[in-house]
């Protein structure tokens, strides 16, 4: 991008303007919603943050790569941008709103660039400044997208952890209440946590309660059988409980053979059986 007039590039011209009018631009930016709403503790903090952004953009412009979002100079402000995005998201600001707020930074910058430059540099300077602000928006969008992915990953992980609590029902009797649709990833987690719990608690009986599983098809039945077999290999007994009438019918209609896996209608029945195995018995006080 070479300028028609002075022979300097637009980026170089913008870099000069950013250096020369750093203070003025930072003061103006600090009053915009993007900074004002995040740095509520005081205007000084907002100005400092605005300075940081001006300096970073000046560095990028000095490097002549105003359209490159991968410039190392930009990495410096990425964490700060991410923090700002977090703060705004918590305040209920949506992604389009936030990018609009970033776009607002453009107006003061363009005004200063237009004002500062002579006729021969103005056109290329404005072009470079626009490209620079476009790059900033792209970086912001990138961070927004990544954060979305991070949140989804984290929640998926949380769901896996939350959905497999191992409950100790009695001495050497443990239970896992399965809730929601079973897929291969969840089955894996259930199996691992259950087997580890059998080792830790020296469990003799493990109860898989599927009251909360809405649907049992051949695949889910396969998962349940795998888990039950693994439990058996460990030397413990596995009981599947909480089989509702419709599910029992589906299993029969699909011709699924649960083999020698013990099943009980309710968790209570399974517990009664487990206690019997352990040689204990619940009796009324009479």
């Amino acid at each position: 991008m070479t300028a028609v007039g002075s022979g300097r590039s637009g980026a170089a011209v913008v870099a000069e303007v950013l250096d020369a009018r750093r203070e003025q631009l930072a003061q103006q930016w600090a009053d915009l919603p993007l900074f004002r709403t995040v740095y509520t503790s005081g205007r000084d903090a907002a100005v400092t943050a605005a300075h940081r952004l001006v300096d970073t953009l000046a560095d990028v412009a000095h490097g002549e790569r105003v359209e490159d979002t991968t410039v190392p100079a930009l990495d410096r402000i990425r964490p700060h941008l991410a923090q700002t995005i977090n703060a705004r998201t918590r305040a209920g600001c949506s992604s389009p709103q936030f990018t609009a707020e970033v776009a607002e930074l453009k107006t003061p910058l363009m005004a200063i660039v237009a004002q500062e430059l002579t006729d021969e540099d103005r056109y290329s300077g404005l072009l470079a400044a626009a490209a620079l602000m476009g790059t900033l928006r792209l970086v912001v969008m990138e961070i927004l997208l990544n954060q979305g992915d991070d949140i989804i990953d984290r929640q998926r992980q949380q769901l896996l952890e939350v959905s497999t609590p191992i409950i100790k029902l009695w001495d050497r009797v443990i239970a896992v209440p399965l809730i929601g649709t079973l897929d291969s990833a969840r089955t894996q987690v259930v199996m691992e946590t259950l087997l580890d719990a059998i080792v830790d608690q020296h469990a003799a009986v493990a109860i898989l309660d599927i009251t909360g599983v809405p649907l049992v098809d051949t695949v889910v039945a396969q998962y349940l059988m795998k888990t039950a077999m693994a439990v058996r290999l460990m030397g413990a007994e596995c009981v599947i409980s909480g089989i509702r009438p419709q599910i029992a019918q589906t299993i029969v209609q699909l011709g699924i053979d649960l083999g020698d896996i013990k099943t009980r209608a309710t968790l209570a029945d399974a517990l009664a059986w487990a206690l019997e195995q352990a040689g204990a018995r619940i009796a009324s006080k009479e």
Partner: protein
Amino acid sequence: MDRIPILRLGRVLLASIQQELTDDIALALQQDLTEMAAAGADGVIIDISGVDVVDSFLARVLSEIAAAARMLAGETVVAGMRPSVAITLVEMGLSLRGLRTARSLSDALSALGLGEARIQGRS
């Protein structure tokens, strides 16, 4: 070559694998155990609590050892299988059907009537 010692406790044979299991050791164990079981035994206990990881070959050999011991000696108990090994076996479809399993060696001994402590519930 390392071999896994097989102990004779009355009419019961005990093979306790407490080392890293290599292909050779597993094959040697298979041979030793079947020979000793054929010589006369009422039960076999294979303690694999020391085995942390198995590959497809070892998983197959283990299930074969267990199946052969069951044919020769009747009662065979596999004791102390680790979660990772159990998952590998299940994923390979080797469920050791009809084989007795126990959580620990002492459970296996009492299952064969050799130990004193049967699993007791709270009184």
